Protein backbone atom coordinates (compact mmCIF):
# COMPACT_ATOMS: atom_id res chain seq x y z
CA UNK A 1 0.00 0.00 0.00
CA UNK A 2 2.76 2.42 0.95
CA UNK A 3 4.54 1.78 -2.33
CA UNK A 4 1.33 2.30 -4.32
CA UNK A 5 0.81 5.56 -2.46
CA UNK A 6 4.29 6.76 -3.39
CA UNK A 7 3.64 5.99 -7.05
CA UNK A 8 0.48 8.07 -7.19
CA UNK A 9 0.96 11.60 -8.43
CA UNK A 10 -0.17 14.58 -6.36
CA UNK A 11 -2.83 15.24 -8.97
CA UNK A 12 -4.08 11.65 -8.73
CA UNK A 13 -4.32 11.89 -4.94
CA UNK A 14 -6.19 15.18 -5.16
CA UNK A 15 -8.56 13.60 -7.66
CA UNK A 16 -9.16 10.61 -5.40
CA UNK A 17 -10.00 12.98 -2.55
CA UNK A 18 -12.32 15.09 -4.71
CA UNK A 19 -14.07 11.95 -6.01
CA UNK A 20 -14.52 10.71 -2.44
CA UNK A 21 -15.99 14.07 -1.40
CA UNK A 22 -18.29 14.13 -4.44
CA UNK A 23 -19.53 10.56 -3.83
CA UNK A 24 -20.47 11.33 -0.25
CA UNK A 25 -21.88 14.85 -0.61
CA UNK A 26 -20.91 15.91 2.90
CA UNK A 27 -17.87 13.72 3.40
CA UNK A 28 -16.41 12.91 6.81
CA UNK A 29 -12.60 12.82 7.08
CA UNK A 30 -12.66 9.08 7.94
CA UNK A 31 -14.56 8.37 4.73
CA UNK A 32 -12.09 10.43 2.67
CA UNK A 33 -9.16 8.75 4.42
CA UNK A 34 -10.55 5.31 3.54
CA UNK A 35 -11.56 6.13 -0.04
CA UNK A 36 -8.39 8.05 -0.94
CA UNK A 37 -6.16 5.50 0.79
CA UNK A 38 -4.06 8.03 2.73
CA UNK A 39 -2.54 8.40 6.15
CA UNK A 40 -4.29 10.91 8.42
CA UNK A 41 -1.38 13.33 8.31
CA UNK A 42 -1.16 13.36 4.54
CA UNK A 43 -4.91 13.60 4.13
CA UNK A 44 -5.03 16.68 6.39
CA UNK A 45 -2.32 18.32 4.31
CA UNK A 46 -4.14 17.61 1.05
CA UNK A 47 -7.51 18.73 2.45
CA UNK A 48 -5.99 22.03 3.61
CA UNK A 49 -4.48 22.53 0.18
CA UNK A 50 -7.75 21.81 -1.64
CA UNK A 51 -9.63 24.10 0.74
CA UNK A 52 -7.18 26.95 0.19
CA UNK A 53 -7.61 26.51 -3.58
CA UNK A 54 -11.37 26.82 -3.21
CA UNK A 55 -12.12 23.35 -4.57
CA UNK A 56 -13.70 22.07 -1.35
CA UNK A 57 -15.18 23.74 1.72
CA UNK A 58 -15.23 22.61 5.31
CA UNK A 59 -18.35 22.60 7.48
CA UNK A 60 -17.92 22.35 11.24
CA UNK A 61 -20.92 21.34 13.38
CA UNK A 62 -19.84 20.78 16.98
CA UNK A 63 -17.34 17.96 16.95
CA UNK A 64 -18.27 16.88 13.43
CA UNK A 65 -16.28 18.13 10.50
CA UNK A 66 -17.39 17.47 6.92
CA UNK A 67 -16.20 18.50 3.46
CA UNK A 68 -18.13 19.23 0.27
CA UNK A 69 -17.26 20.31 -3.24
CA UNK A 70 -17.54 23.97 -4.18
CA UNK A 71 -18.87 24.93 -7.65
CA UNK A 72 -15.22 25.50 -8.64
CA UNK A 73 -14.41 22.00 -7.41
CA UNK A 74 -17.26 20.51 -9.46
CA UNK A 75 -15.99 22.28 -12.62
CA UNK A 76 -12.44 21.15 -11.90
CA UNK A 77 -13.56 17.55 -11.45
CA UNK A 78 -15.50 17.60 -14.75
CA UNK A 79 -12.47 18.99 -16.59
CA UNK A 80 -10.22 16.41 -14.96
CA UNK A 81 -12.51 13.56 -16.02
CA UNK A 82 -12.28 14.84 -19.59
CA UNK A 83 -8.50 15.08 -19.29
CA UNK A 84 -8.29 11.57 -17.84
CA UNK A 85 -10.32 10.12 -20.74
CA UNK A 86 -8.18 12.00 -23.23
CA UNK A 87 -4.83 10.91 -21.80
CA UNK A 88 -6.03 7.29 -21.52
CA UNK A 89 -6.51 7.31 -25.29
CA UNK A 90 -2.76 7.82 -25.66
CA UNK A 91 -1.93 5.26 -22.95
CA UNK A 92 -1.03 7.85 -20.34
CA UNK A 93 -2.07 8.23 -16.73
CA UNK A 94 -2.71 11.25 -14.58
Amino acid at each position, binding site marked *: MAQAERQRSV*LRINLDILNAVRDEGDAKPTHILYKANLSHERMTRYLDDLTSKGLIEMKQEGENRTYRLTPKGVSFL*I*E*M*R*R*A*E*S*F*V*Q*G*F*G*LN*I
Partner: protein
Amino acid sequence: MPSVYSGAETRVWTFGLDRMSERLKLQVRVELLPMAASAVVTFSLNILSAIVALLTSYFAYRFSRLVDNSVLKAISVGFMLLGIGLIVDAGTSLVSGKTLVESFAGRELILLASFTYLTVQMVAYVVIAVGYAFSAYGKRIGNVAPVVLAGAAALGLYRFSLVSYFVTFILLAFVVFQGFLIHSRGRTRFSSIVLLGFSLILVAHFVLLVSVLTLGSGLFLIGTGVQFLGFVSLLAFVVRSEAVGAG
Protein backbone atom coordinates in the same frame (compact mmCIF):
# COMPACT_ATOMS: atom_id res chain seq x y z
CA MET B 1 7.51 10.57 -71.21
CA PRO B 2 4.95 7.83 -71.79
CA SER B 3 2.38 8.54 -74.45
CA VAL B 4 -0.52 8.15 -72.05
CA TYR B 5 0.26 11.56 -70.59
CA SER B 6 -1.98 14.36 -71.76
CA GLY B 7 -0.57 17.40 -73.53
CA ALA B 8 -0.88 19.48 -70.40
CA GLU B 9 1.02 16.94 -68.36
CA THR B 10 3.78 16.75 -70.96
CA ARG B 11 4.22 20.49 -70.63
CA VAL B 12 4.49 20.08 -66.87
CA TRP B 13 7.20 17.43 -67.22
CA THR B 14 9.18 19.71 -69.51
CA PHE B 15 9.62 22.00 -66.51
CA GLY B 16 11.76 19.24 -65.07
CA LEU B 17 9.38 18.18 -62.33
CA ASP B 18 9.98 14.52 -63.11
CA ARG B 19 13.31 14.87 -61.36
CA MET B 20 11.92 16.66 -58.37
CA SER B 21 8.75 15.21 -56.91
CA GLU B 22 6.81 12.09 -57.76
CA ARG B 23 4.07 13.18 -55.43
CA LEU B 24 3.65 16.53 -57.16
CA LYS B 25 3.36 14.75 -60.48
CA LEU B 26 0.68 12.61 -58.96
CA GLN B 27 -1.14 15.61 -57.56
CA VAL B 28 -1.11 17.20 -60.99
CA ARG B 29 -2.43 13.97 -62.48
CA VAL B 30 -5.30 13.88 -60.00
CA GLU B 31 -6.10 17.46 -60.82
CA LEU B 32 -6.03 16.80 -64.56
CA LEU B 33 -8.16 13.67 -64.30
CA PRO B 34 -11.34 13.70 -66.41
CA MET B 35 -13.23 13.49 -63.12
CA ALA B 36 -13.32 17.20 -62.40
CA ALA B 37 -14.37 16.59 -58.81
CA SER B 38 -11.27 14.60 -57.81
CA ALA B 39 -9.16 17.63 -56.90
CA VAL B 40 -12.09 19.11 -54.98
CA VAL B 41 -12.48 15.79 -53.11
CA THR B 42 -8.77 15.82 -52.18
CA PHE B 43 -9.06 19.45 -51.08
CA SER B 44 -12.17 18.77 -48.95
CA LEU B 45 -10.79 15.64 -47.28
CA ASN B 46 -7.51 17.38 -46.44
CA ILE B 47 -9.26 20.44 -45.02
CA LEU B 48 -11.57 18.29 -42.86
CA SER B 49 -8.60 16.18 -41.70
CA ALA B 50 -6.71 19.38 -40.88
CA ILE B 51 -9.60 20.66 -38.75
CA VAL B 52 -9.66 17.38 -36.77
CA ALA B 53 -5.86 17.48 -36.35
CA LEU B 54 -5.99 21.07 -35.03
CA LEU B 55 -8.89 20.17 -32.72
CA THR B 56 -6.93 17.22 -31.31
CA SER B 57 -3.92 19.51 -30.89
CA TYR B 58 -6.03 22.04 -28.98
CA PHE B 59 -7.41 19.45 -26.55
CA ALA B 60 -3.98 17.88 -26.04
CA TYR B 61 -2.58 21.35 -25.25
CA ARG B 62 -5.48 22.19 -22.91
CA PHE B 63 -5.13 18.96 -20.95
CA SER B 64 -1.32 19.07 -20.95
CA ARG B 65 -1.53 22.34 -19.03
CA LEU B 66 -3.93 20.78 -16.57
CA VAL B 67 -1.98 17.58 -15.91
CA ASP B 68 1.50 18.92 -16.75
CA ASN B 69 2.43 16.06 -19.07
CA SER B 70 5.27 16.44 -21.60
CA VAL B 71 4.03 13.56 -23.78
CA LEU B 72 0.70 15.34 -24.21
CA LYS B 73 2.61 18.49 -25.17
CA ALA B 74 4.48 16.52 -27.85
CA ILE B 75 1.19 15.12 -29.16
CA SER B 76 -0.25 18.64 -29.23
CA VAL B 77 2.71 19.99 -31.24
CA GLY B 78 2.61 16.97 -33.57
CA PHE B 79 -1.08 17.36 -34.39
CA MET B 80 -0.70 21.12 -34.80
CA LEU B 81 2.04 20.54 -37.39
CA LEU B 82 -0.10 17.92 -39.11
CA GLY B 83 -3.01 20.35 -39.29
CA ILE B 84 -0.84 23.11 -40.76
CA GLY B 85 0.68 20.69 -43.28
CA LEU B 86 -2.73 19.44 -44.39
CA ILE B 87 -3.98 23.01 -44.88
CA VAL B 88 -0.93 23.83 -47.03
CA ASP B 89 -1.51 20.66 -49.06
CA ALA B 90 -5.23 21.34 -49.44
CA GLY B 91 -4.45 24.84 -50.66
CA THR B 92 -2.13 23.62 -53.37
CA SER B 93 -4.17 20.58 -54.41
CA LEU B 94 -6.71 22.73 -56.23
CA VAL B 95 -4.31 24.98 -58.12
CA SER B 96 -1.05 23.12 -58.66
CA GLY B 97 -1.84 21.65 -62.11
CA LYS B 98 -3.17 24.90 -63.51
CA THR B 99 -0.28 26.90 -62.06
CA LEU B 100 2.34 24.46 -63.29
CA VAL B 101 0.92 24.40 -66.80
CA GLU B 102 0.22 28.10 -67.17
CA SER B 103 2.82 29.84 -65.06
CA PHE B 104 6.49 29.03 -65.06
CA ALA B 105 7.00 31.52 -62.22
CA GLY B 106 4.44 29.79 -60.00
CA ARG B 107 6.32 26.51 -60.25
CA GLU B 108 8.74 27.30 -57.42
CA LEU B 109 5.87 28.29 -55.14
CA ILE B 110 4.01 25.04 -55.75
CA LEU B 111 7.18 23.02 -55.27
CA LEU B 112 7.87 24.87 -52.03
CA ALA B 113 4.32 24.19 -50.80
CA SER B 114 4.62 20.49 -51.62
CA PHE B 115 8.04 20.31 -49.95
CA THR B 116 6.66 22.15 -46.90
CA TYR B 117 3.72 19.76 -46.57
CA LEU B 118 5.84 16.62 -46.77
CA THR B 119 8.46 18.01 -44.37
CA VAL B 120 5.93 19.24 -41.84
CA GLN B 121 4.07 15.92 -41.99
CA MET B 122 7.28 13.99 -41.40
CA VAL B 123 8.33 16.22 -38.49
CA ALA B 124 4.82 15.94 -37.01
CA TYR B 125 4.98 12.15 -36.93
CA VAL B 126 8.54 12.28 -35.55
CA VAL B 127 7.24 14.43 -32.67
CA ILE B 128 4.27 12.12 -32.02
CA ALA B 129 6.45 8.99 -32.25
CA VAL B 130 9.03 10.49 -29.88
CA GLY B 131 6.19 11.37 -27.49
CA TYR B 132 5.09 7.73 -27.51
CA ALA B 133 8.70 6.57 -27.15
CA PHE B 134 9.26 8.83 -24.12
CA SER B 135 6.16 7.36 -22.58
CA ALA B 136 7.36 3.79 -23.18
CA TYR B 137 11.16 3.91 -22.92
CA GLY B 138 12.09 7.11 -21.07
CA LYS B 139 14.32 9.99 -22.08
CA ARG B 140 17.13 8.01 -23.72
CA ILE B 141 15.03 7.52 -26.85
CA GLY B 142 15.04 11.29 -27.48
CA ASN B 143 18.50 11.02 -29.04
CA VAL B 144 17.09 8.94 -31.89
CA ALA B 145 14.79 11.66 -33.25
CA PRO B 146 17.50 13.97 -34.71
CA VAL B 147 19.19 10.93 -36.30
CA VAL B 148 15.93 9.89 -38.00
CA LEU B 149 15.35 13.42 -39.27
CA ALA B 150 18.95 13.88 -40.46
CA GLY B 151 18.86 10.52 -42.26
CA ALA B 152 15.54 11.35 -43.88
CA ALA B 153 16.81 14.77 -44.94
CA ALA B 154 19.97 13.32 -46.46
CA LEU B 155 18.06 10.68 -48.39
CA GLY B 156 15.34 13.16 -49.19
CA LEU B 157 17.72 15.27 -51.22
CA TYR B 158 17.64 12.40 -53.68
CA ARG B 159 13.92 11.63 -53.96
CA PHE B 160 12.12 13.64 -51.35
CA SER B 161 8.49 12.65 -51.74
CA LEU B 162 9.24 8.93 -51.81
CA VAL B 163 11.57 9.08 -48.83
CA SER B 164 9.27 11.29 -46.77
CA TYR B 165 6.34 8.92 -47.31
CA PHE B 166 8.52 5.96 -46.42
CA VAL B 167 9.86 7.62 -43.24
CA THR B 168 6.35 8.70 -42.26
CA PHE B 169 5.12 5.15 -42.82
CA ILE B 170 7.85 3.73 -40.54
CA LEU B 171 7.10 6.33 -37.85
CA LEU B 172 3.39 5.55 -38.02
CA ALA B 173 4.13 1.83 -37.80
CA PHE B 174 6.03 2.55 -34.58
CA VAL B 175 3.15 4.66 -33.21
CA VAL B 176 0.62 1.91 -34.04
CA PHE B 177 2.88 -0.74 -32.47
CA GLN B 178 3.17 1.31 -29.27
CA GLY B 179 -0.56 2.02 -29.37
CA PHE B 180 -1.20 -1.72 -29.65
CA LEU B 181 1.06 -2.45 -26.65
CA ILE B 182 -0.69 0.25 -24.62
CA HIS B 183 -4.07 -1.09 -25.65
CA SER B 184 -3.18 -4.68 -24.78
CA ARG B 185 -1.81 -3.66 -21.33
CA GLY B 186 -4.90 -1.82 -20.19
CA ARG B 187 -7.50 -1.47 -22.86
CA THR B 188 -10.04 1.30 -22.66
CA ARG B 189 -12.57 2.35 -25.27
CA PHE B 190 -10.53 5.51 -25.76
CA SER B 191 -7.27 3.70 -26.51
CA SER B 192 -9.23 1.49 -28.97
CA ILE B 193 -10.45 4.49 -30.95
CA VAL B 194 -7.00 6.15 -31.01
CA LEU B 195 -5.43 2.86 -32.11
CA LEU B 196 -8.03 2.52 -34.89
CA GLY B 197 -7.36 6.11 -36.00
CA PHE B 198 -3.57 5.69 -36.20
CA SER B 199 -3.97 2.26 -37.86
CA LEU B 200 -6.13 3.78 -40.61
CA ILE B 201 -3.61 6.60 -41.11
CA LEU B 202 -0.85 3.94 -41.33
CA VAL B 203 -2.79 2.02 -44.00
CA ALA B 204 -3.43 5.31 -45.81
CA HIS B 205 0.29 6.08 -45.91
CA PHE B 206 1.06 2.64 -47.26
CA VAL B 207 -1.46 3.22 -50.07
CA LEU B 208 -0.05 6.72 -50.66
CA LEU B 209 3.50 5.33 -50.76
CA VAL B 210 2.44 2.77 -53.39
CA SER B 211 0.59 5.47 -55.32
CA VAL B 212 3.73 7.65 -55.38
CA LEU B 213 5.81 4.66 -56.53
CA THR B 214 3.39 3.70 -59.31
CA LEU B 215 2.02 7.18 -60.03
CA GLY B 216 -1.46 5.75 -59.52
CA SER B 217 -3.90 8.62 -59.21
CA GLY B 218 -6.75 6.30 -58.13
CA LEU B 219 -4.63 4.95 -55.27
CA PHE B 220 -3.73 8.52 -54.31
CA LEU B 221 -7.42 9.35 -53.90
CA ILE B 222 -8.06 6.12 -51.95
CA GLY B 223 -5.10 6.85 -49.65
CA THR B 224 -6.36 10.38 -49.00
CA GLY B 225 -9.83 8.95 -48.24
CA VAL B 226 -8.49 6.32 -45.80
CA GLN B 227 -6.38 9.00 -44.08
CA PHE B 228 -9.56 11.04 -43.66
CA LEU B 229 -11.29 8.02 -42.05
CA GLY B 230 -8.38 7.83 -39.60
CA PHE B 231 -8.97 11.45 -38.64
CA VAL B 232 -12.71 10.75 -38.29
CA SER B 233 -11.79 8.09 -35.69
CA LEU B 234 -9.70 10.65 -33.83
CA LEU B 235 -12.63 13.07 -33.98
CA ALA B 236 -14.88 10.37 -32.45
CA PHE B 237 -12.28 9.96 -29.69
CA VAL B 238 -12.15 13.70 -28.94
CA VAL B 239 -15.95 13.98 -28.91
CA ARG B 240 -16.39 10.95 -26.63
CA SER B 241 -13.70 12.04 -24.19
CA GLU B 242 -15.45 15.42 -23.93
CA ALA B 243 -18.78 13.69 -23.34
CA VAL B 244 -17.33 11.85 -20.32
CA GLY B 245 -16.93 15.11 -18.44
CA ALA B 246 -20.48 16.12 -19.20
CA GLY B 247 -21.88 12.76 -18.01
